[in-house]
C-alpha cells in the first residue's frame, strides 16, 4: 500500500505545478509527517480569513506546508522550523502568540483576573461572614440575658 502511495505521489508530482495534490505533500516518515501536521495547525494562512495552513486550500498555504515539511526533513526542531517562516512573514503568522514583553498581558491576563477576583471575593467574604459581625460586648450580653429572663412580660 505504501508503495502504491509513493507511486501515486511521484506521478502526481510530474503532473505539473498547478495540480495542488495534497497527498503529495505528505512526508514519507509518519513521525515527521505528524510533527509537520501539528505545526501547520499553529500557522495562520495569511491570505485567508482565520484558517490555519493545515485547513486552508489556498496556494500560499500549500507552499508553506511544503516548506515546513522541507525544514523538518532537513532536521530543524519545531522551534527552528516555525522561526524560518516567522522570519519571512512576521509574528502574524503564528496562531500561538509569542511570549514577548507586549504579549505578557495576553498570556497572564486570565490568571491575573482570576487572582484579583479571588482576592476581591476573599476580602468581601471576610467582611461579610457572620463571624465578622463580632461577638457581643459584656453590656449587650447582660441586656440580652435580661430580656430573655423577663419572658417578654412587658
Amino acid at each position, binding site marked *: 500500500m505504501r508503495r502504491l502511495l509513493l507511486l501515486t505521489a511521484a506521478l502526481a508530482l510530474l503532473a505539473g*505545478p498547478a495540480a495542488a495534490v495534497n497527498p503529495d505533500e505528505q512526508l514519507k516518515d509518519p513521525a515527521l509527517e505528524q510533527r509537520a501536521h501539528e505545526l501547520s495547525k499553529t500557522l495562520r494562512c*495569511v*491570505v485567508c480569513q482565520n484558517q490555519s495552513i493545515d485547513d486552508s486550500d489556498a*496556494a*500560499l498555504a500549500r*507552499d*508553506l506546508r511544503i*516548506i515546513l515539511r522541507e525544514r523538518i526533513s532537513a532536521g530543524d526542531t519545531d522551534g527552528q522550523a516555525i522561526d524560518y517562516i*516567522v*522570519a*519571512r*512573514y*512576521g509574528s*502574524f503568522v503564528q496562531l500561538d502568540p509569542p511570549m514577548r514583553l507586549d504579549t505578557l498581558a495576553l498570556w497572564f491576563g486570565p490568571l491575573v483576573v482570576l487572582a484579583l477576583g479571588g482576592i*476581591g471575593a476573599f476580602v468581601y467574604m471576610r467582611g461579610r461572614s457572620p463571624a465578622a459581625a463580632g461577638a457581643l460586648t459584656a453590656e449587650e450580653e447582660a441586656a440580652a440575658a435580661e430580656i430573655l429572663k423577663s419572658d417578654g412580660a412587658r
Partner: protein
Amino acid sequence: MKRLLFILPVVGFLALLGVFFAGLGRDPRALPSVFIGKPLPAFATAPLRPGDTGLASTDFQKGEPALLNVFASWCGPCRVEHPVLMRLRQEGVVIHGLDWKEDAPAGLKWLTERGDPYVRAGNDPTGRTGIEFGVAGVPETFIIDKQGRVRYRHVGALTPEDWDQKIGPLMEQLRKES
C-alpha cells in the same frame, strides 16, 4: 476604597472605547513586511527575457532607490497596475520585476503583449524566491532604498493615487538620503 472598585468598570470601559475607536481605522488584513528596514535577503533568479541576466538581490545595491514589482500573467489586478508601471518607467523610475509562480514563456508573453516596464526581470516558477521575502500574493511592490534595504511593501495593484500619496513621495525622500 469601596467607591474605587465601583468606578473601575466605567474607567476600564472608556479605555476600551478608545481602543475600538482607534481600531476602526485599521485594515485587519494588511500584512506589514518583516523586512522593513532590513536588506533584501540574498537571492538570484533565472532570466525572464532571453539573453538577459535575470534578477538578483545585488541589483538593488546599485546606489539608487528602486521598486521591486512581483507580478504574474494570471493575476487580474496586475493588469490594472501595468499601465501605471509603464508610465513610471517613462518618468525614469527604476522598476525591477519578478515573475511569480509561472513559467518564463508565460511571463515573457505578458511583457511582449503589454509592454515591458522592467529594467531587470527574473522568473520565479515555484514562487520560492518570493516566499524568501514574504510575498503572500500578487501583485506586490517593494520599495528598496540605495543600500538595498526594504522600506515599504505595497500589497495589491499600484494605483496612481497610491503613487501620488505614498510611494512617489517616499521614493523622493529615498533619493535625497545619503
